[in-house]
């Protein structure tokens, strides 16, 4: 699992590469816990290379969801693979989180 960061004035983009399981979710959690994350208007998650997400991985996003909402930070997922999207959908997260097909749409929000 690799997490690469890219930031502009008001947008932080995290690209996930590999499998987000119990061990790698710690890494992502560290990134999202950093206080400066809440200074952005948008946090975009690029899921193009995300092959698998476990419940621990989902847990990371869930645990930050409320905090992001309270701080007015938008959490947007894009480029999500079919099977990963399926996991979000089964759990009902697609109704809570913004998941869009492409980066362009994500930036446009």
């Amino acid at each position, binding site marked *: 699992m690799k997490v690469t960061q890219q930031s502009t004035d008001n947008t932080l983009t995290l690209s996930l590469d590999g499998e987000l399981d119990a061990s790698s979710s710690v890494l992502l959690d560290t990134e999202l816990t950093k206080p400066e994350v809440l200074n952005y208007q948008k946090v975009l998650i690029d899921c193009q290379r995300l092959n698998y997400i476990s*419940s*621990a991985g989902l847990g990371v996003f869930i645990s930050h969801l*409320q905090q992001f909402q309270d701080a007015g930070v938008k959490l947007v997922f894009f480029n999500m693979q079919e099977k990963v999207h399926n996991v979000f959908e*089964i*759990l*009902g997260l697609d109704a*809570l989180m913004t998941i869009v097909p492409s980066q362009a749409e994500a930036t446009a929000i």
Partner: protein
Amino acid sequence: MPFLQKLKPAILPLAALSWLVLLVSTLLHANAALAARFGTPPEWLTLVAQASFVAAVFLYQRGQPDPLRGTDFVGLLRRLVLGPGLLAAGCVGLHLLERLIEFGSPTTDRTFFSVVYTINLGLFVIFLAYTNYSWRSLVLFRATTTIRSNWVWFEILLGGTLLFRLLNWAPPGPLATVIIGSLAMFGIYLSSNQKWIAYLSRRQKWEVVLMQMALLLCMAVFVAYFLRIAQDPKLVAPTPQHAFLLLTVFFAAFYSLMGLMVTLFNLPTAGIFEQKREEILSLQRLTQLIQKGQNEQEVYDMLFDASVQTVEADAAWLDVDAEVPGNLQGKRFNIEEDTIVAIRGLLADYNLGHIEYLNNDLPGSSGFRGLGLQLGSLIVMPMRSAKRQYGSLYMLKEQRQGFDRENLGILQTFATQTVLSIENLQLLAHSLQNERVQEELKIASSVQDSLIPKNLPIDNWFEIGSHARAAKEVGGDFYDFLHLPGKRLAILIGDVSGKGITAAFHMAQMKGIFHALMQENPLAKNDREKFPVPSKFMAMSNQALIHCLEKSSFITAALYIIDYEHGGFVFARAGHCHTLYYHSIKEEVSYFRTAGLGLGIIRNDGYEKHIKNQFYDYNPGDVMVIYTDGIVEARGADQEEYGEERLKQMLERNYYLDANEIKQQILNDLDEFSYGQPMHDDQTLLVIKFKAAQPDTLN
């Protein structure tokens, strides 16, 4: 040598017989009256008797078991002095007795003289044989094969010289000297093998010196006797086996002398050897203590005592950094507490408290001079591993230059050994602790097992097949059944995110919530409100879980309430896997793809709008498959997931079977799919097959 083996029992009688022959022959020579009566034996008989007696005694000694027991060199020498040494005393005694008798009544009769001579010759040969074979044990002690074969050659050549006299052949003058001389050199060469002396302690060396002297004295007595009577006119017997005896005496005496010298020269260094030995013994004691599994305090005590003893410290102390304060005690020897505090403070000032440090001139160092100590040298030896510092050892001596590099090395070894022992003990304690945890996990596992219903509801309107297995000792999957009044059955299935103990706790909690919420509400206005509908149940569960589920955890669940009086069911899916369903009327398999959010994800009262009820009227022959994600997310050989599609195909192929058979077919396929792969997640599978309702048969 089988030939010698057969000869063995005959050797002792042969020796005795040949000695008797020798005695008789000497007597016949000495006593004219007897000679007149029995005739004088030929000289060759005497010579053969002599030679065979010598050979037999040596062979007999050769065949005796090794006189050296273990490394008891002193014992070997003591037996040598006490046994054969007494023979020498006997020899002297006999000679004096003979002199005394002759002094009392001078006579020209040679009978008694000859008897004494023959006896003494016998004793001398026995003495030599015993000595020689004792020396063999010492020469061959830890010897190489070369030395061993050299020794055999030495024996053979010595034996050869026996033949000189027997064949009555004397090599021409210079040749004899050369042969005897080179054999003597051979003996000298063998005498240089004195390895055993290194194994003696100082005291033993002194004992050895004294005993070697006694032995040399014995030999001197014999030699003096034979030299003396060689000139005696009364001697009639043929002279003994000169060459052989000469060489043997030479070898025995030289080895003894050499041993004596080596021991003497080794005496001054014996102390050092002993010190090294003491160090090794201390190390051994330290090592043994670990194996006995003693506690940490004992290991420290042992280290302290061994260190003080080994470096001969005049004062010392040991600081132990215990992980739990007060758990372990330091040690103090011959030093006041305030002196310790002062030195410790000084070392801390120089930042030397926790590193290896040797100061052999305390009065010369300004800081220590200021303390006004009566001490000259100091070693500080920290005990540490890669992980942590265990403490420090301080050794002090009154004189300056009291410690050397070796002392430092030894203390280093001790400290390393101690740290190893301590860490070993800690590992042992940890593994015991681990075992206890394992034991408790087993209990947890059996407790959790009891939470899973063992008796599936049995009725004639449906069949249920169930399967559950956890990836670890305890898991986060659960399912449960509850009969509700009015011919209804509630089925709950769920999965707590994560695995192991935490998941197991929440699973138990969920089961509790299920049983608490599925109680009949006495205030309900109508039948429908007596029990919460699935979506209401999920909203209430979510509310209950908010306070105990940690932020990153969530639970997925699905609740089905089947009304078999009316042939229908209602369910709500809270983020749980989609329900797989076979519709017998349409002859079609599909998933109920309803929306529904997992529990514990949103933690305010907005949850209820994220969950929906789904109603469905079932027909006999319909099959419902409910499961957890451990089934569809099981990995195959190429890391591919089992998947919903494959599960669907399995039901399409097997819907006509019994519920249990359908379950088994799915499991077989799953096992085949994930053969050889580790199990990542708990797996739960329930198959419910509806049959034509037959009311009033049971209820």
